[in-house]
C-alpha cells in the first residue's frame, strides 16, 4: 500500500510536468461554424485518406467562437483555419491583424435557409413580407406606427394562408443561421413596408433593431442549435414550422417539406442560381503565416477547391453544398495561389 501510494503520487506530479514541453503539431487544426462543419470534416477525412498527411482535426465551435480562437495568435497552439457561415467582422479582423495574422478568405459555396413543416401539414407559399409580419416583435400598424405584433394565425396575415396558429421553431441568437435568417428574410421583408423603408433611410440602426427582433410572445420558439432536433419536433407537431439549413431538408424529404418563398421553392437549383431568396455564402479563413509551417495545409486547401470535391460530381455537392459559379471558383483559386489576404477597408 505504502509503496503504491508513493508511486501514484510521483506519477501524478510528473505527468503535467512532462506535458509542458512543447509539441510539434503535425496535423491541421480547424475550428468554427457548425454549418460549414459537415463539409470541412468531409474534406478533412478524404484528405487524410488520400494523402500522406494526418487527418485534420475539425472542431464545431460556431462562427464567433471559432474566430476568437483563430485570431488569438500565431503558432502551433492556435488553429490554422476558421470556418465561417458569414464574412469575417471588422472587429474580428482587427483582432487578427493586431495579433499579426493575415487571413486568406476562401469562399466555398452557398447554403439555403429553409422554412419547413411536416409533409402532413398544408403547404406554405410565403413572401418575405409575410414572414416579417409573422415573426417580427413589432410591425407597422394601420397608421404606419409600430405596434406589438397582433397576428396570431397565418390567416390573420393573409386570407390565402392556412388558418393555423403561428408557431415557428428556430435557432437561438448565437447561431449563424439565425443571423442570416434575420438579415435576409426579416430585413428583406421589413424593407417592403413604406414606413419602415423611410425609417431605414433616416436611422439605419433603429430600422435594424425593428427588423432583427423576433417575437417573444410564443409565436417564435428558440429550439436550440441542433437542427436535427427541430426536424424531429416538426414531425411531431404538424402545425409548426421550423427554420434550419438546407441540408437537413435534403436528408429528410420523406417527413418535411420546404415553404416556397417569393415564388421559389428551396431546392438545389434555385439556391444555386440565387432565385431562392434566403441563402448565404459560406467561407473559411486560413492563416497565411501558417501556410509553409503546418504540414499539409496547402494541400488541404487544394483538396477543398479541387474538382473532386467541388466539381459537378464532387463529394461536397453530394452532401448538399451549393457550389460557387465557375467564375467565382476561379477567382477563389487565384486568390489562394496568390495568397491574397483580407485587409481592413
Amino acid at each position, binding site marked *: 500500500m505504502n509503496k503504491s501510494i508513493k508511486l501514484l503520487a510521483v506519477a501524478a506530479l510528473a505527468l503535467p510536468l512532462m506535458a*509542458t514541453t512543447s509539441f510539434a*503539431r503535425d496535423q491541421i487544426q480547424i475550428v468554427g461554424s457548425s454549418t460549414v*462543419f459537415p463539409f470541412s470534416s468531409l474534406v478533412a477525412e478524404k484528405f487524410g485518406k488520400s494523402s500522406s498527411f494526418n*487527418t485534420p*482535426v475539425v*472542431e*464545431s465551435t460556431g462562427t464567433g467562437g471559432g474566430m476568437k480562437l483563430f485570431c488569438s495568435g500565431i503558432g502551433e*497552439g492556435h488553429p490554422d483555419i476558421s470556418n465561417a457561415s458569414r464574412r469575417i467582422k471588422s472587429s474580428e479582423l482587427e483582432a487578427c491583424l493586431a495579433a499579426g495574422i493575415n487571413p486568406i478568405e476562401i469562399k466555398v459555396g452557398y447554403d439555403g435557409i429553409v422554412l419547413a413543416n411536416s409533409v402532413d401539414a398544408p403547404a406554405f407559399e410565403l413572401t418575405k413580407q409575410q414572414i416579417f409580419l409573422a415573426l417580427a416583435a413589432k410591425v407597422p400598424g394601420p397608421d404606419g406606427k409600430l405596434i406589438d405584433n397582433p397576428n396570431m394565425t397565418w390567416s390573420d396575415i393573409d386570407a390565402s394562408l392556412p388558418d393555423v396558429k403561428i408557431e415557428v421553431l428556430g435557432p437561438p441568437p448565437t447561431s449563424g443561421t439565425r443571423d442570416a435568417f434575420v438579415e435576409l428574410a426579416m430585413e428583406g421583408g421589413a424593407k417592403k413596408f413604406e414606413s419602415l423603408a423611410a425609417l431605414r433611410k433616416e436611422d439605419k440602426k433603429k430600422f435594424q433593431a425593428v427588423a432583427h427582433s423576433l417575437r417573444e410572445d410564443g409565436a417564435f420558439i428558440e429550439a436550440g442549435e441542433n437542427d436535427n432536433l427541430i426536424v424531429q419536433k416538426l414531425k411531431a407537431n404538424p402545425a409548426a414550422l421550423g427554420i434550419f*439549413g438546407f441540408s437537413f431538408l435534403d436528408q429528410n424529404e*420523406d417527413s418535411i417539406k420546404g415553404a416556397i418563398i417569393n415564388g421559389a421553392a428551396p431546392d438545389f437549383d434555385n439556391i444555386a442560381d440565387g432565385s431562392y431568396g434566403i441563402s448565404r455564402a459560406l467561407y473559411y479563413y486560413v492563416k497565411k503565416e501558417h501556410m509553409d509551417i503546418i504540414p499539409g495545409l496547402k494541400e488541404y486547401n487544394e483538396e477543398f477547391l479541387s474538382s473532386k470535391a467541388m466539381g459537378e460530381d464532387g463529394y461536397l455537392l453530394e452532401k448538399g453544398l451549393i457550389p460557387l459559379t465557375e467564375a467565382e471558383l476561379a477567382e477563389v483559386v487565384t486568390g489562394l495561389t496568390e495568397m491574397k489576404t483580407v485587409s481592413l477597408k
Partner: protein
Amino acid sequence: MTNLRAAHIKKRYAAERRFKMYGLLAIMFALGFLAIMLVTITFRALPAFSQTYVKVDIEFSENVIDPDGAREKVQIAKADFQKIVRDGIYALFPEVTNRKEKRKLKKLISSEAGYHIARVLLADDQPDFEFIGTKQSVWVKSSDDIDSFIKGLIRRDVDESRRRVNDQQIGWVDQLMADGRIEKRFNWDFFKFGDSRSPEDAGIRGAVVGSFFTLIITLLLSFPLGVLAAVYLEEYSKPSKMTAFIEVNINNLAAVPSIVFGLLGLALFLNFFGMPRSAPLVGGMVLSLMTLPTIIITTRAALKSVPPSIREAALGIGASKMQTVLHHVLPLAMPGALTGAIIGMARALGETAPLLMIGMVAFIVDVPTGFTDPSTVLPVQIYIWADSPERAFEAKMSAAILVLLFFLVIMNAIAVLLRRRYERRW
C-alpha cells in the same frame, strides 16, 4: 367506543398501506421510464449493428491501377480504386448508359469502398501485386441510403418524390437481391473504426480509446490527490478558520458547473502552459479538477466511519501517526474511497461541456494512440452524430449511447461490488 377504535385502527392500517403503495408506485414509475428509455434506444440502435454489402465483380485493370507498370506501392496507393468499383457496378447493369442514371447507380455503393479495397490489398509493406489484371468478386459496403432501404428505414410505399431512394434504384436493388448479390452482415467496423462522415464507415473506436486515455489521466491525477487531501483534512488538520474555509470551498467546487472547469483548462493548461489542443491529457486534467471534490468528500466520509478505537489501538502499541494512517485507517477506508473514485469517474465519462473549451468536441478520424494525440470521447461522439444531417447517423448515435451506458453500468457495478466485498461494519 370499540366501534370507534376499530374504525380508527382500520384507518391507520389503510394509511399505512397507502404510504407503502406510494413508495412502490414511485419506484415503478422510475423503473418504467428507465425501461422505456432503454427499449427505445436499443430498438433504434439495432440498425447500426448490421451493414449491407453488395457483391461486385471488380476488374483490377492495370490501366487504372498501375498505368506505368512500375509496381510501386506508393504510386498504386494513389490510384483511383473507387473508379474500378464504380466500373464493377456499371458492368452489372450494362443497359444503363445515361449519365444521370449512372450517377444514381453509382450511389448504390459506399463512396469509401475503393479506399477499403486498397487498404486491404496494400496492407503489407511488400504487397504482392498479383491482383493487378485479375477479375475478382468483392463484397463492398452499400451506401447509407441503400443500407437504410434494405433495413426498412426508407419505405418502399411512400411517394417517390419524398424518398431518398428512387424507383429505379429500388429496381436495381431488387435485381441484385434476386441474384444473391446483397447480404447483411454484422457491422464489426463499428467497433474497429474511428469517426467518419460516411455513416457506413463511422465507428466508435476512436471515442472509446479517447475516453479510456482521458479517464486514465483523470484517475491518476484525482485519486492520489483526492485521497491525500482527505487524509490531511480528516487526520491531521486541527479545526480552525482556515480548514473551515477549505471545507466550504471543496463543497462549493463540487457544485460548480462543469463548463467552468473547461474555461479554466483553456486559460491555464492551453494558453499558459501551451499544452496541445484536443488531447486526452488536457481533457483528463480538466476532468480531474471536476472529480477531485467528489473523491475528497467520499474519502473523508470513509475515513470518518473508521472507528477511533482502531486509531487509538494502533497509537497505543507504539505506531506513529503515519503508520496508523497508512497501515490501519486508510486500508479500512479504501473501499469507500474507491467507490467515490469510480462514481466520480463515471460522471467524468459522461461529461462534454468542459471538453468543448479545450477542443475535444471535434471530428477526429484517426484512432488516438497516445495521451497527446487529438481525440474525442464517447458523449461527444454521441453529440456529433446527433447533430449530423445524414439520417443513418441516428442509429449510430443510439448505438454509441448503448456503448456509453454499458461502460457506466460496468463502472457502477464495480463500485457496488467493492462496497459489498470490503465494507466492514463495526
